[in-house]
């Protein structure tokens, strides 16, 4: 197996998204630093991260919705995905929640620890100290201004400008002498070139006009301070002196520091709740984004991990449904990807095996069909039995030969078959020593009294392995050799007849002539007693020779090949014509028992008349003296193996055929009569067989003798009404 490199579970896009979120979160976190330049874009960063959170929340929501849908429709792998997602989320959220909780606690306490009552008091005191210092400075400035104003009051108005410059002891102070109407009389200060002194506002002037000097702090520019003091000139009701003193640099720096620190502390105190809110919001956003990104990436990763499992589940379902052509895409080269590849290999092999099995099945079916065709075309009955005697197969010839419908009993025990067809039990009893024995192959001839008369069966058996579920099975091949034996007998009898005709008939005429010559020569010379004996003897010889001639002629006729001229014949009118020849005085009563319509038969009408006459004559001769004879003739249409036939049944109420003779009644020289050659029925049988038909003795008929003649139907024959 080739070594495969492991791939990171996250795609580049996920990593980039994580980096972007991480960067944004870092910027937002940095922006919360007090002196960070990112403070200006803090709101944008918060909004960006909030939107990113919304995006991730939507993605997670969509994934959860997808998972719920998959679970509801019981999609492959959905259960595993949900479990893994739940476990992953739990493992992610639990420590995050703990860290978040303690971080919030720490944050809250840390911010609270920044503030202290003592510091608060210290800051207030520092500010008050600064204010006290400024107040002290203002009081000094006010006092100095009042002293300057008193000194100026002693000078005439025209010399006040000179006097003002002399009194301005402070380098940075600006002294302005102005009238009630706001006209500047004199100015003394550092900026004399282009400076226009700023006079006090109306509120200050209202106070000064009441005789109360004014002193106060004023802002200069964006952050500087200066002291403005205004005092009236004593005695001069309409003159006022204003002094503007800048705060000394060192004092200004100190007060600035105190005020900045105080403001910063007050601002922090005021922002205490907002700080907690901001930090909490930032931390919450970071946590929320991290969790959402983690859950979303978990969805993507787990879906990727579960994908092979899902594909395998789909694949196994397809295999279970019989789709062996299913191939799964290999998206992962990891262990699960190896499973998918193995699955594909397995399905390919299964498909190959299935194809091979199907080919084998088709071949087997073809062979089976070939075998069935072969068996069906066989004239021999073929049966197969398993070790328990269950009938496994039987061909059509078995049905015909053994007069049973084996198709109804395939898979059933032999006992069931023999129960339905008792005559087969006789056969099986005869064969059981071989079936139960150990011989691999055996043969036996069995004479069987079947429904169609006595049959001579030639049976062969073979033991075969593995037929059925266990043990040895048997194949029985049964040939009906009745016709063959009969033909052999007929042939033998024909040969006998021919020899009788040839060997016996020839000497009979010389014997007869010799006897008549003896009677003619000796009748003249013998005395009366001797002559009478001669007459009697020669007459006997002549009569017996005649009898022998008759017998030889009968045998000759039996042996002589006949010429039949077959033509379509309506059997029922023919029977009517034949019966009409027997008047009531003949001692025989006739009865017809036709069933349904019968088609025309194909036969020689002359020979057929001979057959019927022969059978009626036999019945007539078999009738005992004084017995009222009755012959029943019936016809009906039958079918044998799909071939239409006409059955003619001629039955009498005579003594019948003894059972011991019934099997050989159609053989020559077999007769129940005291007279006759015993060739009548043999000739009848030969004629019927020359028509292509069959004749048998109905062994189940017990009211006399009943002969059943089966005759072929004429081609294109339509059923004829009775």
């Amino acid at each position, binding site marked *: 197996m080739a070594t495969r490199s492991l791939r990171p579970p996250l795609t580049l896009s996920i990593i980039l998204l994580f980096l972007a979120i991480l960067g944004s979160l870092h910027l937002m976190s940095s922006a919360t630093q007090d002196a960070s330049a990112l403070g200006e874009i803090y709101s944008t960063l918060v909004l960006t991260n909030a939107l990113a959170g919304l995006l991730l929340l939507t993605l997670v929501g969509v994934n959860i919705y997808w998972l719920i849908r998959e679970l509801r429709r019981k999609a492959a792998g959905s259960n595993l995905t949900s479990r893994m997602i739940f476990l992953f989320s739990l493992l992610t959220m639990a420590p995050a929640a703990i860290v978040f909780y303690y971080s919030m606690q720490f944050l809250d306490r840390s911010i609270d620890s920044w503030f202290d009552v003592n510091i608060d008091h210290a800051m207030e005191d520092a500010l008050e100290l600064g204010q006290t210092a400024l107040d002290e400075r203002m009081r000094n400035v006010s006092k100095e201004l009042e002293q300057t104003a008193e000194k100026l009051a002693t000078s005439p108005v025209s010399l006040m400008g000179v006097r003002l410059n002399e009194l301005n002891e402070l380098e940075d102070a600006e002294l302005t002498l102005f009238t009630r109407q706001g006209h500047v009389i004199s100015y003394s200060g550092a900026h004399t070139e282009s400076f226009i002194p700023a006079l006090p506002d109306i509120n200050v002037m209202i106070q000064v006009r009441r005789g109360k000097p004014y002193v106060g702090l*004023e*802002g200069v520019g964006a952050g500087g*301070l200066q002291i403005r003091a205004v005092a009236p000139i004593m005695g001069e009701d309409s003159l006022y002196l204003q002094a503007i003193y800048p705060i000394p640099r060192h004092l200004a720096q100190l007060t600035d520091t105190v005020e900045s620190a105080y403001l910063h502390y007050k601002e922090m105190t005021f922002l205490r709740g907002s700080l907690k809110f901001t930090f909490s919001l930032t931390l919450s956003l970071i946590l929320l984004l991290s969790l959402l990104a983690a859950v979303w990436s978990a969805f993507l990763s787990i879906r990727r991990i579960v994908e092979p499992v899902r594909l395998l589940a789909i694949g196994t379902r397809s295999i279970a449904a019989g789709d062996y052509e299913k191939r799964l895409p290999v998206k992962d080269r990891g262990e699960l990807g190896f499973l998918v590849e193995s699955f594909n290999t397995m399905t390919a092999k299964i498909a190959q095996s299935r194809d091979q099995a199907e080919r084998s099945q088709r071949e087997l079916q073809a062979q089976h069909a070939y075998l069935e065709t072969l068996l069906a075309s066989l004239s021999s009955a073929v049966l197969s039995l398993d070790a328990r005697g269950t009938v496994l197969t039987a061909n059509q010839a078995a049905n015909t030969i053994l007069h049973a419908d084996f198709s109804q009993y395939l898979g059933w025990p032999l006992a069931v078959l023999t129960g339905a067809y008792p005559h087969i039990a006789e056969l099986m009893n005869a064969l059981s020593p071989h079936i139960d024995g150990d011989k691999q192959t055996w043969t036996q001839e069995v004479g069987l009294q079947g429904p169609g008369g006595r049959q001579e069966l030639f049976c062969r058996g073979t033991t075969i392995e593995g037929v059925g579920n266990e043990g040895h099975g048997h194949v029985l091949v049964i040939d009906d050799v009745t016709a063959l034996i009969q033909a052999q007998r007929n042939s033998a009898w024909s040969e006998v007849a021919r020899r009788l005709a040839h060997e016996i008939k020839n000497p009979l005429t010389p014997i007869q002539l010799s006897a008549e010559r003896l009677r003619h020569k000796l009748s003249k010379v013998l005395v009366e007693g001797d002559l009478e004996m001669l007459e009697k003897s020669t007459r006997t010889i002549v009569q017996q020779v005649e009898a022998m001639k008759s017998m030889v002629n009968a045998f000759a006729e039996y042996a002589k090949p006949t010429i039949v001229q077959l033509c379509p014949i309506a059997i029922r009118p023919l029977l009517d014509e034949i019966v009409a020849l027997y008047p009531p005085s003949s001692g025989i009563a006739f009865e017809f028992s036709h069933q349904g319509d019968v088609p025309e038969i194909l036969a020689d009408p002359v020979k057929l008349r001979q057959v019927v006459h022969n059978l009626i004559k036999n019945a007539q001769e078999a009738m005992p003296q004084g017995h009222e004879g009755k012959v029943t003739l019936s016809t009906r249409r039958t079918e044998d193996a799909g071939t239409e036939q006409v059955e003619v049944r001629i039955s009498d109420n005579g003594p019948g055929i003894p059972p011991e003779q019934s099997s050989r009644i159609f053989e020559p020289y077999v007769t129940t009569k005291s007279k006759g050659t015993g060739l009548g029925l043999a000739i009848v049988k030969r004629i019927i067989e020359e028509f292509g038909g069959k004749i048998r003795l109905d062994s189940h008929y017990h009211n006399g003798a009943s002969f059943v003649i089966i005759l072929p139907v004429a081609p294109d024959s339509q059923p004829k009404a009775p």
Partner: protein
Amino acid sequence: MQGLKSIPRSWQVSTLALAIIAGVPMSGIASESGIFIQRAQLDGKENRPVVTADIEYRFPNVALRALDEGIPLTFRVKLRIDRVRSWGWSETLVQDERTIQLRYQPLAKFFQVSDLGSGAALHYASLASVLDTLSHLRGWSIPQLPALTENEQREATLSFEFDVESLPLPLRLVAYLSPDWTMETPPYRWPLDP
């Protein structure tokens, strides 16, 4: 006069988005606090028009508390004069903006009002003095307005916006999300050509 400054409209969007996220019902924000322009008009000659306006300030308590704690409050006063056509879009003829910051200096115990554009600062001993001064907007001179053609009118819009972004960082989100900090008022519009 300071140059034209681009209006940070993103903050308006941000405010709206954050308000939506936080579930703050915007319709419920209306309260008594706010900055209301009572009257505004364009005076002076055609070649030297001057804007005067009377404004009423109703700062919310939380803003006053913040001011008292040393947190400066910054406002943007925006003036726009549009040429209103009977057809098509309006055309902005003049657009000017001033940024005013109000802060308290505890050491000297006075309030300082600064024009951040020019850097000029005024100091007041009480908030009432500050608001009294700020209530009367006077002498805001603007460039000469172009002549009108037929079927044209001019419309002036004066708006007063509280600049949340100038607040300390921890206070911004609170100011965006809390209705206590709402000082937005609808702009005041008046036609220049009767």
